[in-house]
């Protein structure tokens, strides 16, 4: 509740944002579509703290003693698992939603940092295959641009069931971004509002999915890992079913995960926070004796090395970043503020990715705007950021006495509030109390 002047009290229920949305809906008759992820406050990794070493734990010397950051993904069935230098990977984002230069920059940055990048809806572009040493190929409900030649070129295949920004929803790419090239890749007329289906066209349910995964393995001669990506909702059950369906790797994307274009009501009101999803996923894997055998990648709102380290401590094997990677490339950079203002936004607030007017040249198909992003420079910026995430996570792991990021554990964490303690399954700071579990003496 904001008091602008004494006596002027803003309603907590009908605040200015709410009033604006009601009036916008009344003006247009259509829901609000936007990019980015959930903007509401939800319990997040900021609500967790590490317990550094002291008398009872022995810290590692920074810069001197080894703290591993590598990860191997796909050890369950694939002949050629993926080996990465860092646990931070790049999430799936499409050419179409992003410019070709942005996709190239993501590949270049990932290469320098020794990690993987991922295609998106619309298929694999030659540019991203050429510039990405390790490329994960998404297999989506729309199957836009899907072909077996690209499937065989991929280093891993990610079967996408959903994403955190819109679990249960399909994709959309509005007509402004359907250029000749995007239309050709997706076999669609130019300029239409492209819809992506919300479920796969040739299987329903986990038993069918098991056969589908076997088909993908047969086509690729069992060479590459197969991931299953789900939006975080009923994560415990989804992870168990994904294991049963034969996944090598499971990707769980929390509600803070980004999108290129989705209804605002979907982004803000469907799914669960990333932090709440990880313990559910880990519990499911542990109960099936599959923790660390089927690797867990977590995404959705990861911004810093602290977030990375907290995901590791909760039991993830790796993380994926999307929005943060775009920000590293220059999305919402203050140097474009005047241009953001011209399209009714401001640096730090821009989320209309679907309109294709991105001043930073990232979420656009406009050639003039796209040229603003130099893929080499963008790649270097992304690599710098990825290195910082890794170094920060290492710093925290060493402080907890861990010689590898994967050695972090829930015991290294406490929560700042009851909600975070309950969701993450770690004690409230200063107590031994984990809400929902049998209380111990504090």
């Amino acid at each position: 509740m904001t008091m602008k002047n004494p006596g002027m009290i803003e309603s907590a229920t009908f605040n200015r944002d709410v009033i604006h949305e009601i009036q916008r809906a009344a003006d247009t008759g259509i829901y609000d579509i936007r990019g980015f992820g959930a903007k509401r406050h939800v319990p997040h990794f900021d609500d967790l703290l590490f317990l550094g070493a002291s008398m009872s734990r022995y810290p590692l010397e920074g810069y001197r003693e080894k703290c591993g950051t590598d990860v191997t993904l796909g050890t369950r069935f694939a002949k050629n698992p993926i080996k990465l230098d860092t646990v931070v990977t790049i999430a799936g984002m499409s050419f179409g939603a992003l410019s070709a230069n942005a996709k190239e920059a993501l590949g270049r940055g990932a290469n320098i940092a020794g990690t993987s990048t991922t295609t998106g809806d619309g298929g694999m572009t030659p540019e991203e295959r050429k510039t990405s040493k390790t490329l994960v190929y998404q297999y989506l409900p729309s199957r836009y641009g899907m072909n077996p030649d690209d499937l065989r070129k991929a280093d891993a295949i990610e079967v996408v069931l959903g994403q955190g920004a819109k679990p249960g929803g399909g994709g959309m790419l509005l007509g402004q971004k359907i250029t000749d090239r995007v239309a050709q890749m997706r076999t669609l007329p130019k300029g239409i509002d492209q819809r992506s289906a919300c479920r796969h066209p040739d299987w329903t349910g986990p038993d069918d999915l098991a056969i589908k995964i076997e088909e993908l393995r047969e086509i690729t001669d069992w060479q590459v890992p197969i991931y299953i990506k789900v939006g975080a909702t009923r994560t415990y059950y989804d992870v168990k079913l994904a294991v049963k369906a034969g996944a090598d790797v499971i990707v769980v994307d929390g509600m803070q995960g980004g999108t290129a274009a989705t209804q605002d009501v979907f982004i803000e009101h469907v799914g669960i926070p990333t932090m709440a999803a990880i313990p559910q996923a880990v519990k499911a894997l542990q109960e099936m004796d599959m923790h660390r055998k089927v690797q867990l990648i977590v995404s959705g709102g990861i911004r810093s090395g602290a977030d990375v380290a907290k995901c590791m401590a909760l039991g993830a094997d790796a993380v994926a970043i999307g929005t943060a990677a775009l920000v590293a490339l220059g999305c919402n950079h203050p140097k474009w503020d005047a241009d953001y203002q011209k399209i009714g936004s401001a640096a730090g607030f821009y989320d209309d990715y679907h309109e294709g007017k991105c001043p930073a040249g990232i979420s656009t198909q406009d050639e003039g705007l796209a040229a603003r992003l130099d893929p080499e420079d963008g790649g270097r910026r992304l690599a710098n950021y990825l290195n910082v995430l890794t170094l920060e996570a290492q710093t925290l792991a060493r402080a907890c006495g861990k010689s590898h990021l994967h050695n972090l554990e829930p015991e290294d964490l406490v929560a700042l509030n009851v909600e975070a303690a309950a969701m993450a399954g770690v004690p409230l700071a200063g107590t031994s109390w984990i809400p929902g579990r049998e209380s111990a003496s504090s």
Partner: protein
Amino acid sequence: MKFDLKKDSVRAVNQALHDLAQPADVSVDHISGDHNLAVGLNRPHKVTLNGHAGYYCAGMNQQAEVTVHGNVGQGVAENMMSGKVHVFGNASQSAGATAHGGLLVIEGDAAARCGISMKGVDIVVKGSVGHMSAFMGQAGALVVCGDAGDALGDSLYEAHIYVKGSVASLGADCVEKSMRAEHLEELTRLLEAAGSDEDPADFKRYGSARELYNFKVDNVGAY
């Protein structure tokens, strides 16, 4: 080259088909609902499958000619790029799903969602098709010599649909269209390729009204 699924595994069959450097004639006997047979082929092999095949038979086919003497399960020739798949039997749901090219011929009936999200494949079904066939069809042609179930061509893009028999109902944005000379030519070519002696003049054509291509508030009831 011959295989017998009483003693050979699907994995062995597929690996052999992938490893063949030159086009070959291959037959596989004693198929009994096995899934993922002859998937991911990328040579102009002639493959004969004797028996009822399971899911995704000839999935993602490129160049090969696959003949099935039996029924097929879900997703036959899904995402086919080129070549031909000929089924001398019935097909379960999602036949030819998302396929980009080639020709799929089904001598019997095809269940629901035949040609879902088709992206350039030609499909000829000599019997009838189930509901939601050609749903979100983007390109290519679906020819139905029998009847079509409910919501034919729902949310259709640019795929062409020809039906000889009755249509239970049309899906959103799918309408009957006039049969012009180029359509009769296309239909004649497809029927001939499928070995059908049906008369193209007996068919009706259906296509997209293109009213839902861009979101309009006035169409909200159709979404």
